C-alpha cells in the first residue's frame, strides 16, 4: 500500500545540442548528465516504491528514455556503477543521434531556433501521469521536474500554457532547475501556477547539491522545508506586433491578441474594430465588386 510520501518523478532532460554547444557556463553536457544520474539514483534509494520516468527534450524530437516500472528497463547491477547509469547513458546517446539525424535536412538555423521542444516533452509527461491516475486509487504522487537550459521558444507559448493549465487542474506540480543563462519566463510561470519550485542555481559545478536538497523530497514532506521562493515572476504580456513586454495594451475582443498601439483592424483574426462583423464582411464584398 502506498503511504503519502511515495513519489513518481518525471524528469525532462534538455539535450538540445544548440544550447549545450554554445553554453559558456562551467557545466558541459556530460558533467550535467552525471549530476542528474547521481540524483536519480538518490531518488531510487530513498524509497523502494519511488518511480522515475525520464523523457528527453531534444531540438527536433522528444522521447522516453527510462521508465523504472518497466521490466525491460530494470537491469540488475554488475560491476562498480549502478546498472541504471549505463542504461540511461546508452539510451541518451541513441536519442541524441536520432535527434541530430532528424535535423540534418535543415540549413542555416539562426539564434532564434536554438529552443528545444519543451512543449512536446511536457505533453508526453502529462499523458503518462494521466495513465498513472487511471491505474487505480493507489498510486504514487506525481510531479514533473524540468532540467532545462535552452531559451524559451516564443512559438511554443500557447502549447506550454495549455500544458501548464492542464497540470494545474490535475494538481501536478511542475518544478524547474534552470541551467541556462537567462531565466525562463515560461518555466517561472509554470512553477508559480502549478505550485512547483523554480531554481536557477548560482554555482552549476554543485548542481547535484541543488537537486538533492530541493527536489529529492516528496511532495508531502515539502511542507516541512524552507524551499526557494519565487522572486519576481513576470506576468506582463508581450505585444503580438513587436514581441516587447508591455504593461498596458489593447486587446482584441474577438481573438484576444495583444497590441501596443490602437489599430483599425486586428492582424490575427481580421476583425474590423467598431463594426459588427457581418457589416464588415459585406463592406469588404461591396468594395471588391466595385473595384
Amino acid at each position, binding site marked *: 500500500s502506498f503511504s503519502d510520501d511515495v513519489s513518481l518523478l518525471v524528469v525532462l532532460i534538455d539535450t538540445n545540442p544548440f544550447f549545450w554547444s554554445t553554453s559558456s557556463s562551467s557545466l558541459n553536457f556530460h558533467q550535467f548528465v552525471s549530476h542528474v544520474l547521481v540524483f536519480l539514483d538518490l531518488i531510487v534509494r530513498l524509497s523502494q516504491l519511488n518511480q522515475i520516468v525520464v523523457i528527453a527534450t531534444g*531540438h*527536433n*524530437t*522528444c*522521447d522516453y528514455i527510462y*521508465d523504472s516500472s518497466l521490466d525491460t528497463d530494470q537491469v540488475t547491477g554488475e560491476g562498480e556503477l549502478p546498472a541504471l547509469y549505463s542504461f540511461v547513458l546508452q539510451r541518451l546517446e541513441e536519442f541524441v543521434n536520432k535527434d541530430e539525424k532528424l*535535423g540534418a535536412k*535543415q540549413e542555416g538555423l539562426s539564434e532564434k531556433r536554438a529552443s528545444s*521542444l519543451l*512543449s*512536446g*516533452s511536457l*505533453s*508526453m509527461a502529462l*499523458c*503518462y501521469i*494521466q*495513465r498513472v491516475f*487511471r491505474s487505480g486509487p493507489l498510486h504514487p504522487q506525481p510531479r514533473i521536474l524540468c532540467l532545462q537550459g535552452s531559451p524559451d521558444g516564443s512559438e*511554443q507559448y*500557447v502549447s506550454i*500554457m*495549455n*500544458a501548464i*493549465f*492542464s497540470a494545474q*487542474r*490535475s494538481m501536478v506540480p511542475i518544478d524547474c532547475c534552470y541551467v541556462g543563462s537567462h531565466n525562463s519566463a515560461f518555466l517561472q510561470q509554470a512553477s508559480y*501556477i502549478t505550485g512547483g519550485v523554480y531554481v536557477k542555481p548560482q554555482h552549476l559545478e554543485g548542481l547535484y547539491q541543488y537537486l538533492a536538497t530541493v527536489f529529492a523530497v516528496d511532495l508531502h514532506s515539502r511542507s516541512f522545508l524552507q524551499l526557494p521562493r519565487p522572486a*519576481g*515572476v*513576470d*506576468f*506582463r*504580456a508581450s505585444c503580438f506586433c513587436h514581441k516587447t513586454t*508591455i*504593461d*498596458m*495594451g*489593447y*486587446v*482584441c*475582443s*474577438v*481573438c*484576444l491578441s*495583444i*497590441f501596443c498601439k*490602437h489599430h483599425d483592424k*486586428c492582424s490575427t483574426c481580421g*476583425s*474590423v*474594430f*467598431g*463594426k*459588427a*462583423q*457581418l457589416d*464588415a*464582411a459585406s463592406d469588404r464584398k461591396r468594395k471588391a465588386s466595385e473595384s
Partner: protein
Amino acid sequence: MNNSEKKRMNGEAEEENEEDVEDEGRDAWERTYTDERSWEALEEDESGLLQPIDNKAIYHSQYRRRLQSLSATSAASRIQKGLIRFLCVVVDLSKAAGEMDFKPSRMAVIAKHVEAFIREFFDQNPLSQIGLVIIKDGVAQSLTELGGSPEAHIKALMGKLGCAGDSSLQNALELVHDTLHKIPSYGHREVLILYSALSTCDPGDIMETIQKCKKAKLRCSVIGLSAEMFVCKHLCQETGGSYMVALDEGHFKELLLEHAPPPPALAEFAIANLIKMGFPQRAAEGSIAICSCHREAKVGEGYICPRCKARVCELPTECRFCGLTLVSSPHLARSYHHLFPIEPFTEVSARQLELSRVASKTCFSCRESLLTPGTNKAGPCAACTKCKQYFCLDCDIYIHESLHNCPGCESRRITPAAASVTMS
C-alpha cells in the same frame, strides 16, 4: 382520463402476449427495451462468473460523436467563439423548486451544481462576468451584480436558499434585459435560466418581452427540471439559445457544465473592439500600501495598476480608481486553446493497427500498450491526422478535453517553409 385508460389497456396486453402488442400502445420506457435488451449483453467466463461489460468502448464512441458534432458546427460556417461573456444566471426559486424528485430537493441540487458551474465558468472564461438573479413570489430580484469574482456569487447564492410562490419568466427577462443592456458592445450577452416550474405568471405579454430580448441580442438558454414548456422552447428558438430538460441529477450537471465553454458566437452579434487593458507587475516584497479593494494596509503581495499605481489584491479585476481592466497574461492564455483548437483524431480499427508498420504497438504519449489486455491482438486506437502518431483512447479523450496539445505534433520541429503551408 385518457392516460389511465391507456395504462389499463397496456397492463392487460402485457399479460396476454408482450410480443404481439403494437408499439403505439406501449409507454416510452417499454419501447426502449424492445430493441436493446442490455441484460443479454452479459457474458460468463469459464468458471461461470459474470464478466464486466466493457464500458470503455461505449464511452469512447459517445465521446467521439460529441466531438464530431462540435467540430462540424464550428467548421461549417465561419463562426467565432464569444470569449468575453456577460452571463446572467436566473435561478427559479418558486414553490416548484422545493419538489423532492431531485434529492434532497431541486433547490439544493441546483445550488450545488451552480457553485461548481461558476468555478468552471471563471476557469474557462477568466475575462467574463456573471450576475445572479432569482425568481421568487412572482418577482425577479437581482442577487448579485455582474462581477468577476466567483466567491462573491457563491456566498450570495448559498445565503438565499428558500423557495416560495409562483414563477414569472417575463419579470426575469425584463430584469436581465435591463442589466445586460448597459454592458459594452464587445461583450456577448447571455442568459441561462434554470427553470423548475411548469407555468409562468406574467404581468404582460411575454412574447413582446421575448422580441425585446431578441432585438437586444441576448442569447437565452433554458435548462428545465420538470418538463418541456412551449414558452421556454420559443424563447430559446427566437434568441438562438439551447433548451434542454434534465432527466436526473447527473444529466443536469452535464447540461449545466456544457454552458461553461464559450458558445459559438454568430458573426452579427459580435462587434469587435480593442479593449484597453493593463498587465500589472507584482508589488515588491515588503512594500506597504493600502489596497483599493479592502481599504486596509497590506504588506508585499499584490499588484500595482500601471496607470494610476493603485494596489489591487487579485487579478483579473477592474481598477477602482481609474477603471482600467487589469489582467495577467495567463488569463488571456487560458482562452487561446479555443482559438487554436486541435483537430479530432481519426479512429483506427484493430485491423488497421495490425497492418500498420509501427514497430511497438504502444500509445505515443503514455506508452501504454495498444494491444487488448490479455491477448496479443491489437485493440482500437486513434491517430492524429497531422503527425500520424497512434494514441490510446484514454489519451485521445484527455488530449482533446483537457490538454489541447497533440504530443506528437509538439514533438516535431516544423521548418518555417512547412509551417507557412500548414497555417494557410
